[in-house]
């Protein structure tokens, strides 16, 4: 049966009745959003993929508890965020970050090697310098501000969905995003990144 025009709720109902293909379709629809949420929390692609898989597994096991108060995506993202935060807090994850902090360094290098959009080499170098400063500033943010900013800028989630994930009201999420931007600007000023 085709699942292209089927809603999430219908797929959930089918999955509950034991249709694995229906759940597979849900995985396909939401895998990118789930993965990026995990990536925002963990900042490591490998960890993010593991956390995303765990989130789908947990969602499948708890499918009966989905009441439909929120959308399936919101419910799934909440599970994903819990999984990712559990992983982030775990000792092994901390240890990995201490011993081999290469995932962030690799990401930085990958972004630095991306073709610059500036018209001249000087302008491109200046822009790359600024981007590096912003990356540092984002890393220096408190987890609450950083999580809100990354989720808000990822483009996959509404503020309501972010609020559900972070268990915070809409206003708080907006304030955190705004505060994160302010802190980044301060960081750039303090580190002399041009006339910011």
């Amino acid at each position, binding site marked *: 049966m085709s699942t292209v025009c089927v809603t999430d709720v219908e797929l959930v109902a089918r999955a509950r009745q034991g249709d*694995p293909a229906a*759940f*597979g379709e849900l*995985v*396909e629809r939401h*895998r*990118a959003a789930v*993965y*990026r949420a995990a*990536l*925002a929390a963990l*900042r490591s*692609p490998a960890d*993010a*993929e*593991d*956390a*995303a*898989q*765990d*989130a*789908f*597994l*947990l969602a*499948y*096991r708890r499918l009966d508890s989905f009441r439909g108060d929120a959308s399936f995506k919101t419910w799934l993202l909440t599970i994903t965020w819990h*999984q990712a935060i*559990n*992983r982030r*807090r*775990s000792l092994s994850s901390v240890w990995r970050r201490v011993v081999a902090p290469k995932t962030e360094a690799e*990401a930085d290098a990958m*972004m630095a090697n991306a073709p610059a959009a500036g018209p001249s080499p000087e302008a491109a170098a200046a*822009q790359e310098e*600024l*981007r590096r400063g*912003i*990356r540092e500033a*984002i890393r220096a943010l408190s987890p609450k501000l950083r999580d809100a*900013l*990354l*989720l*808000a*800028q*990822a*483009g996959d989630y509404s503020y309501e969905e972010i609020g559900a994930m972070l268990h915070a009201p809409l206003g708080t999420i907006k304030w955190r995003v705004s505060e994160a*931007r302010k802190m*980044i*600007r301060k960081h*750039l000023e303090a580190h002399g990144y*041009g*006339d*910011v």
Partner: protein
Amino acid sequence: MSEELLDQAIAEVARELTRGEPGSAFRAQVMARINAGDRPRYTAWRAAWVLSPVAVAAIVIAAFLFRTTTPVSAPAVAVAGRAEQARPLRDQRDRIATAVDSASERAVAATPEGAGLAPSRPASNRVVTNRPAARPVLDPLAAPPLAVASIAVDTLAQDPIQIERLDAIAPMTVAPLDIPDVQRRDQ
């Protein structure tokens, strides 16, 4: 740089940090894990944080229960032994208590209530005397009699300290000064 451009740069960098997609085999891997009955790996970690205080509380409660339900411990035996030693004292106390009881019963019988002429007071108003039933609770606390001999102190056999007598010093005679005080000050 304008605020708008900076915000745009921040948004771009933040988006880069969350850019990406899981591998192409992601769906297949998830479905394989579901079919294999696999469990999420990181649920146990949180459970450990929740369960460890519960486990500690359970151990404390178990230890407390074990202590309270243990029939006879070594200190209890020692206390019982001391109570056995204190039996003569207890017997004496019992005799006094019995005498007091019988005296008070006679006194009660002499009253109209005691003679059955008036309604008796409720049990809660009665004077509670030192009944033997209360003894098992109090007896272990009774101090054992001292069976130690009194301390005997020997007399000191040493002679008192002899102090040598100092030689007598002859008194010094000082001749009075010839010069008056005023002159001495001027000099």
